[in-house]
């Protein structure tokens, strides 16, 4: 395992775009070359070593065996791990927006919380967040037919709104609450929410959403009966019938009025 540590040299206010912080990009480069990679601070083009300290092993290896550790506050650093296909990124603290965009493999681990659009249009790989995540986890870009198509996202805290919007595949597990409109416009995929959710599966065509806490269910969903899931008894619904959907929402308890 090649170990590379990235440490911010300052507190960032204007956001940083660092799509080059990615095992795929680092694998073929020495630490010095990594330091010369392009990174953006707002509208200023910079190089990584202007803003970060790069340290670790200087022996090149495969993408798969590259481990990038983000040590410090990366809450304003966007697009980390974009397009990654293999390897590991470990964020010791928070991570900014668009982490793991278009990911197809590898693993992204966040000790703190992650910003919005985590795992946007993900196709494979694993994302684990110990804290909370923002809005649009595993969703698509505006206008895109599909968001997440594959891979796994696990959030131990809660998420913001529009979780897994336009999801076409893959799975998202949230221990805490799932915000407003999780699984909106879905055409596949599997979402499990440990806490509460508001109007899950709006316009869903297919897929499954499990809400272990309380769900407010749309009037366009049809009750199907009770089912068992992981030792719990859940209310099963079919919908979103307003759009001839054939997805399922399973909720432990229902918010009425």
């Amino acid at each position, binding site marked *: 395992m090649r170990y590379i540590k990235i440490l911010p040299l300052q507190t960032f206010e204007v956001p940083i775009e660092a799509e080059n912080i990615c095992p795929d990009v680092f694998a073929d480069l020495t630490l010095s070359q990594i330091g010369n990679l392009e990174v953006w601070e707002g509208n200023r083009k910079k190089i990584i070593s202007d803003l970060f300290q790069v340290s670790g092993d200087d022996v090149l290896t495969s993408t798969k065996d590259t481990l990038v550790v983000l040590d410090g506050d990366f809450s304003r650093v966007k697009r980390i791990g974009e397009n990654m296909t293999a390897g590991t990124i470990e964020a010791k603290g928070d991570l900014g927006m668009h982490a793991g965009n278009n990911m197809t493999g590898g693993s992204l681990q966040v000790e703190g919380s992650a910003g919005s*659009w985590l795992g946007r249009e993900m196709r494979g790989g694993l994302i684990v967040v110990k804290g909370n995540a923002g809005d649009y986890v595993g969703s698509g870009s505006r206008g895109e037919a599909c968001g997440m198509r594959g891979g796994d996202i696990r959030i131990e805290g809660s998420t913001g709104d529009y979780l897994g919007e336009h999801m076409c595949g893959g799975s998202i597990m949230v221990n805490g609450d799932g915000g407003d409109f999780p699984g909106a416009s879905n055409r596949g995929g599997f979402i499990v929410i440990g806490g509460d959710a508001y109007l899950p599966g709006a316009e869903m065509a297919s897929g499954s959403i499990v809400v272990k806490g309380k769900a407010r269910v749309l009037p366009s*969903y049809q009750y199907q009966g009770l089912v068992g899931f992981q030792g719990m008894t859940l209310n099963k619904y079919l919908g979103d019938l307003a759009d001839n959907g054939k997805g399922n929402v399973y909720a432990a308890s229902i918010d009425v009025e």
Partner: protein
Amino acid sequence: MVKDVLCPFCGSLCDDIRVEIEDGLIVKVRGACKLGASKIKGHDRIKAPMVRKNGDLVETTYQEAYDRAAQILLESKRPLLYGWCSTICEAHKKGILLAEEVAGVIDSTATVCHGPSIIGIEEKGLAGSTLGQVKNRADLIIFWGSNPSEAHPRHALRYSSNAKGRFTEDGRKGRKVIVVDVRETKTSKNADKFLLIKPGSDYEIISALRMMVNGKGDVVPDTVAGVAKSALEEVAEMAKSAKFGALFFGLGLTHSRGRYKNIDNALSLVRDLNVHTKFMVMPMRGHYNVTGFGQVCAWETGYPMSVDFSRGAPYFNPGETAACDVLGNKEADALMAIAADPASNFPWKVVERMAEIPVIQIDPFENPTTLLADVVIPSAVAGVEVEGTAYRMDGLSLRMKKLVDSTSPSDQEIVSNIIESVRWLGHDN
């Protein structure tokens, strides 16, 4: 007396105003509603450009103000150029060019208004028409989360509930008006049917209506968010049996829980209705040229709002690049506010950020944003002192007249001059 004047206030963009001018001053405004008349007649203006020195705003020359503004924008790593809704398209074009040159973010007041509607349109498209089509054909009008009696006072008579047209010679008598809102309003008092719903329940109500329109009403429970199913069935039936229905929606839908999902669902509802009859939908745009900014921005950049030029090409992601986002997330480190009053209309968290960063204000009138500004540049009033283009809420463009002279430069002149200063002072990127 100047006839056929366009009113520079709301998205109705009435073009039949008559203005009496004597000795280069406006003395009387006829035919406009109170809001428009007040705007055209005008009120206290900012007298001269000002820059803040040791905490106080001090008068200066226009050139110094342009240079100071340019300096602020050049030093900034994430400047936001915001507002645009109360000025003409000619200024918008300059603004977009300036945003490109300083590699900043540009956004309009749609961020606090119909931005969610744009996102809804990106999901579903918009089944719309010009307002005259409604006047001539509509026998059913629905106002959802919109109170035109107060916000668009002449809309009903010129275009909607009370308008008389070719196939609607009976005007109001030949139409049914439905109002959906969370409280009674002046508009609801004049409706044939008022559907009172709970705040934040719009999405569910719309889903229920869609089920009924689509013939699946039996799935819908007996009450939806506290509203009786029978009341919803009545509305669905009225909508389906109209010859030409028109759904106008306002901030009640865009600002309540669900935001763009509400619009998304409303657009789907109208699409579902088109299976049965002719139906159109239109956002009740607030300011008279916020629509214009969206049009200009779309043809120049590919996107109608919230465009980020930081990396040289347009990037669009409302939720990240909208004005409220870049200010609320404390990303923006400089703000140019033009033809809008963000200090009055933004959430508190956002206004907080405004207080922390340099602010350039371009406006004819003093307002709360002036208190936070570091550079203040008075401009001429577009549509009164400057002629140019505006787009009505239905996307129709019209040319606003110049009625009287002004001692202040126009918005587009000001922005052009700032661009000149930016080029002169150089860009280090």
